[in-house]
């Protein structure tokens, strides 16, 4: 059994290993792409590590370094929980090679457990980059005994296991419920979104709860947050006690519970794994179609429709693509429900100024959500094995990409504009400024679309086994997402400050010009690549 587990795990890892691909690939272009991907990843790891060490330096300078292990455990637990939740459907359920694997002499539980372990091994480098860099930071300031380092490393391996298992189990429950419905994809998408929103609001609820402790300084507040989190989610305090007090019981609890939970979860999941996957993979065939009148559409709209069906046909694509829009909808809805007076009251409570101060940041705040995802950043790769269709059809590449971009505009612009209008009403923004914000919102969507398409086309990967590889982990998506999010966050702050010295309309016009130019340049780049 053990050797079969290892054999399967080894093969799962090998089948998606870039190193293996590099070793056996004869194409120099592909090889250099793989190296480029590695370099990008290393840069990303280094950025994460630098950020973690800088956080520890902050803790160290304010003599709060004892909070670092707790913070490390909390960050890893949250990330492991969120990432696993989005990956469960696709990695554990409804995956491509299910038929092949199940036809081989593996126990159902072995397949399920190995798929989980595969997910764990694949994401481990991310978690290790956080924990090891925080260990270095902690080491510099706390100067613990030498044996703490190997202990930290070993426990860091266990740290993501419990949140990953909890998340996978919730994913399993959602898959189990959805499998019973005819519209499985739709139910799975809706349940996933509801759960993510639930987690999002729980986070605010907890933050509010912690704030009631009246902790003053930001770092102290964060340290207290970690302590409180440790009281609710015990593995955080087990890890903290293990590395700060060498608590033997805590070490045993963290390792033992991780292993025990793994066994229990996969005992339960294994029991109905086959039936869930069978139901998820089977499609209802009505066989009752009667020829009706057909309509002729233009090529661009035919591509848009194809993209729409591609998105709605995949829970993973849908949840990743639509989550930002849902947040924008909620943000706008909340602004309308609360009304201008309540919003003014809330803003004044947070910053000592009226709501007019934050008005110039409205389009960027909505864009922070809407721009989280750009479908053209992954849709060229999502063509995958279907790529022969568009390749053999008389469609210019530029038309194909224009269709993909148009789809993203249809997807993002309505949510963007709704969010802006609602927030403008909520903050009593003057009409002229509102119009300018709406234009900026449109331009931001155009930029997100075109820039996403540049990333997606430049880093197109067709030979994927699981759509997660391109939707969540694709180089194109990463290159699009991270700088875009950071720049948006920084710009929100910058714009609020600039709004105090420059006329709002002038500032917005300037942003329209800058983002318009960036959108135009990105679009030109897409057209150039498509040649």
């Amino acid at each position: 059994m053990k050797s079969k587990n290892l054999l399967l795990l080894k093969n799962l890892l090998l089948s998606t290993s870039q190193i293996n691909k590099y070793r056996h690939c004869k194409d120099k272009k592909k090889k250099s792409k793989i190296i480029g991907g590695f370099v990008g990843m290393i840069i990303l790891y280094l950025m994460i590590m630098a950020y973690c060490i800088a956080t520890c330096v902050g803790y160290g300078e304010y003599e709060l370094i004892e909070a670092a292990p707790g913070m490390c455990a909390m960050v890893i637990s949250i990330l492991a929980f969120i990432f696993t939740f989005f990956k469960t459907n696709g990695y554990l359920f409804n995956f491509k090679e299910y038929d092949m694997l199940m036809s081989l002499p593996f126990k159902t539980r072995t397949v399920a457990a190995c798929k989980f372990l595969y997910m764990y091994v694949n994401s481990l480098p991310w978690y290790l980059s956080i924990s090891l860099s925080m260990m270095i930071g902690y080491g510099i300031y706390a100067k613990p005994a030498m044996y703490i380092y190997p202990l930290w490393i070993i426990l860091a391996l266990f740290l993501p296991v419990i949140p990953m298992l909890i998340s996978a189990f919730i994913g399993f429950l959602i898959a189990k419920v959805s499998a019973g419905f005819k519209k499985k994809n739709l139910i799975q998408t809706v349940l996933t979104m509801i759960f993510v929103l639930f987690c999002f609001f729980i986070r605010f609820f907890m933050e509010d709860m912690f704030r009631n402790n009246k902790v003053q300084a930001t770092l102290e507040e964060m340290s207290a947050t970690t302590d409180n989190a440790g009281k609710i989610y015990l593995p955080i305090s087990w890890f903290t006690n293990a590395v700060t007090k060498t608590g033997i019981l805590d070490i045993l609890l963290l390792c033992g519970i991780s292993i025990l939970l793994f066994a229990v979860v996969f005992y339960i999941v294994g029991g109905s794994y086959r039936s869930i996957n069978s139901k998820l993979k089977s499609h209802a065939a009505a066989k009752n179609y009667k020829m009706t009148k057909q309509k002729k559409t233009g090529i661009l709209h035919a591509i848009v429709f194809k993209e729409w069906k591609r998105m709605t046909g995949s829970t993973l694509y849908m949840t990743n693509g639509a989550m930002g829009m849902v947040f924008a909808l909620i943000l706008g809805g909340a602004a309308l429900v609360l009304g201008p007076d309540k919003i003014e009251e809330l803003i004044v409570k947070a910053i000592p100024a009226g709501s007019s101060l934050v008005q110039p940041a409205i389009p960027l705040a909505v864009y922070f959500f809407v721009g989280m995802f750009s479908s053209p950043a992954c849709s060229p790769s999502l063509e995958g094995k279907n790529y022969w269709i568009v390749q053999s059809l008389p469609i210019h590449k530029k038309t194909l990409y224009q269709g993909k971009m148009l789809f993203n505009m249809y997807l993002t612009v309505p949510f963007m504009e709704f969010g802006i209008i609602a927030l403008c009403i909520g903050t009593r923004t003057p009409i002229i400024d509102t119009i300018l914000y709406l234009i900026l919102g449109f331009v931001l969507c155009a930029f997100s679309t075109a820039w996403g398409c540049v990333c997606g086309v430049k880093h197109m990967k067709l030979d994927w086994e699981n759509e997660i590889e391109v939707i969540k982990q694709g180089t194109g998506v990463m290159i699009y997402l991270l700088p875009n999010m950071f720049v948006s966050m920084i710009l929100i702050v910058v714009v609020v400050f600039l709004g105090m010295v420059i006329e709002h309309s002038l500032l917005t016009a300037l942003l329209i010009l800058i983002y318009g130019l960036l959108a135009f340049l990105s679009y030109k780049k897409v057209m150039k690549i498509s040649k």
Partner: protein
Amino acid sequence: MTTKPILEIKNYSKTYGEGKRAADNVSLTVMSGDIYGFIGHNGAGKSTTIRAIVGVLDFTEGEILIDGHSVKDDPMECKRITAYIPDNPDLYENLTGIQYLNFIADVFEISAKDREERIKKYADIFEITESLGDLIGSYSHGMKQKLAIISALIHEPKLIVMDEPFVGLDPKAAFLLKGIMHDMCENGAAIFFSTHVLDVAEKLCNKVAIIKKGRIIASGTMEELTEGHSLEETFLESEGD
């Protein structure tokens, strides 16, 4: 009916990494009205050649012309008059059959009236009309193959390129496809297809080319090639050389 070259392959070669030649100086001509069989064992270079003809695979050496248009220089015009049916059609599983056919029809800018007529005609022939409202993901391999064939016929191409078209088809569908192939060629189209089934090639094709290790080792009309022997004997003999 006057015939003219529909597909001309001139000295086409395809080299993969480390200098392996999957196709080596391949030349052949398919005239309008031809049903041209392309035979060879696994890995001989059939699919590599076919994928280059339909513009899926790049190539650097040689020239491929479709109705006088270069696949390299004028790929769009070539694609407008060509239809391709791969051996294992990976179709958009999230679309229904009718949505996929409409997508293809939109790409070829076929009027609503024409597409309706053609979809009905071919879907009825292949007996999948009732399934057109179902997701392609729910189709069997044979049904996907039938849908790919209908999508290829929907724009009435001048050249149909097929990679092992009979694999996965039930006997009735295979018989119907052969009939459609004959009808199309009588109307001036040309068909170029690869197959392992030599009996089918012998009965269906008027011309055949045998490819081995990327090189055409024999080609011509069926009569010229077989010289009174069966195609199977000719093929095995040439393979043994």
